[in-house]
């Protein structure tokens, strides 16, 4: 069992008018086998939290800690975090011209595992995972994310999630921009990975729609750079009914 622990995390970004604090004291603990949903309005800092966990250089941690089984994640470089078992499914995956999916997947898998995967098994695994996510086999020969539709990019993120088998997955608005079919396919992928019993998930979303497919045990309402309220799955139902307004007013009043 693994634990990802975020304690009183404060994060700033550099803007034209000087540093701006985005995360204002986030605390969160996720264990293997758990799915936590983070729900919040646009601009509340959800992507900032996700990118900070992954180590994006734009975000400066001014105080607080992130640890993975007690190890200081903030001390690790971006690639070290991935090799330690953290995975970020990005909100906007970038295109990498000239690097084929096949080459990329094998290179990343080799880096994460510390050894090249057995060629025979690997090819089979990739094929099966692509089939499960209804990704056309021709994508293997295409360049990473190049010319992929929004939905295709998200499927490919989940493809990586299934192949790289991280300890913790952070999914940044993986549901946005997906039609109902794609949403189902992508959710099934996340559930397959979660059902292995070896992963914990931080599911970041703006809408409750994806929660019909992925069932979190914990829901955190995220407003203005911190967790405004935490609860069980029922909190999502209340959000569905009431929207974020109540929390935003509370945050503004605080």
């Amino acid at each position, binding site marked *: 069992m693994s634990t990802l622990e975020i304690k009183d995390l404060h994060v700033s970004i550099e803007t034209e008018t000087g540093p701006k604090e985005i995360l204002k004291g986030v605390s969160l603990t996720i264990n293997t086998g758990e799915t936590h949903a983070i729900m919040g309005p646009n601009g509340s800092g959800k992507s900032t939290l996700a990118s900070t966990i992954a180590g994006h*250089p734009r975000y400066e941690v001014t105080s607080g800690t992130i640890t993975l089984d007690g190890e200081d994640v903030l001390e690790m470089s971006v690639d070290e975090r*991935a090799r330690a078992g953290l995975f970020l499914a990005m909100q906007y995956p970038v295109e*990498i011209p*000239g690097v084929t999916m096949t080459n*990329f997947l094998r290179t990343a898998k080799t*880096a994460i595992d510390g050894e090249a995967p057995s060629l025979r098994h690997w090819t089979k695994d990739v094929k099966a995972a692509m089939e499960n996510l209804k990704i056309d086999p021709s994508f293997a020969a295409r360049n990473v994310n190049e010319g992929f539709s929004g939905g295709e990019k998200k499927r490919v993120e989940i493809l990586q999630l299934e192949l790289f088998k991280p300890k913790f997955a952070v999914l940044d608005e993986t549901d946005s921009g997906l039609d109902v079919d794609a949403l189902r396919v992508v959710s099934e992928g996340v559930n397959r990975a979660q059902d292995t019993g070896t992963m914990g998930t931080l599911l970041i979303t703006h809408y409750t729609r994806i929660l019909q497919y992925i069932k979190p045990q914990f829901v955190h309402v995220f407003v203005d750079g911190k967790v405004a309220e935490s609860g069980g799955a029922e909190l999502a139902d209340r959000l569905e009914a009431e929207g974020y307004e109540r929390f935003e007013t509370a945050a503004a009043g605080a």
Partner: protein
Amino acid sequence: MSQTVNTTDNASPEEIDADGAGVPVIPGMGEEGEKLSATVAEASDAGHATHSVPSGSQKRPVKPGSSRADRLSSFELADFPALTGREEDWRFTPLNRLAGLHLPDGDDARLTGAAPAVSVTELDGVTVETVGRDDARLGTVLTPDDRVSAAAWASFEQATVVTIGADVEATTPVRIDITGTGTAPAAQHLLVIAAPNSRADVVLQHRGSAVVSQNIEFDVQEGAGLNVTSLQSWDDGAVHVSAQQARIGKDASFKHVAVSYGGSLVRLTPTSRLAGQGGETEMFGLYFADAGQHLEQRLFVDHAVANCKSNVLYKGALQGQDAHTVWVGDVLIRKEAEGTDSYEKNQNLVLSEGTRVDSVPNLEIETGLIDGAGHASSTAQFDDEQLFYLMARGIEEKDARELIVRGFLHEIIQKIGIADVEETLIDQMDSELQVASL
């Protein structure tokens, strides 16, 4: 940071879409065009703009000789004055490194060195001839449009003519090996004829040492498909100036891939003239400049008739002190060229300090009735978001950088479509990268 980047349009792609309702006008060319397209780039803050100017007799503010349409072309050397380096089309070229190819001593001089040897693979349906300079087919596609090209025209004695017969579909590439062994300034002339409805891949491989001005004509006749790859893999000291002009007939398609990494100074002027309706041209290029190398490419796409397509993509990488690359892309959509669809892009990746990049896209549109026209130019150190993406998948920074640079270059290599040429180039680029200070 000792780096010079001269680009009109930094990382801001532009689209100009037009329908009958509006006339997009991008006036000016050359020095003016540079200034004007910079203005246009500024106007498009999101990097995406739709330009539409009310139709009517909008007068283009073109100063004489500044439109690409007005560029002098002539078979007479004397029509091109001795170069000063201040000419619009020579302002980036170090004339003192041309080794006399521009005949600085006057119009009576000639390029008398031995031309690099030409050998062409034998193929069914493909004829190869060596002809004298009086052969009537020569000069039917290409007319020199600068002094160095005119010097080659005035000087060459024999030309190689390669003809792909009508309806012939060549199953293996026509390989034209051009191998230099001397450094006396020389002239060379080649003509490739793709007869109606023929299909062929042609690979021009330049190797060895040479100081040569070259004129190459591609006559792509009705319904033909010609895929040309020109590889400049010269030895270190070579000086190579090459005008490669294509005329693309009705419903014909022409692909030109120019790859330059060898030599001291290489200056290419690839031209596609879309002369028959339904014609298509793709012009791709890849250049990798090391310390002290000057690699220059000046493209011209001439949309002279209606309903043609053009797509230009050139990518360059630079490393080392005084590595200098120049890319100028002139696209002219003439008044007659309604229904044109055109795009051009140049991207440069700077891998070390001390380099210089010049990148100038010039788009001139004389009709409003086009399907689309756009241009983009970018010069970047490195895309940090790409780096982050790969590192977030566990790949170490050094490996991630190599993947990205390879990927950047491979995008062009993948366009060649000839397996062994692609493989050799991938290896070649890897060894260029070994020297890179990654």
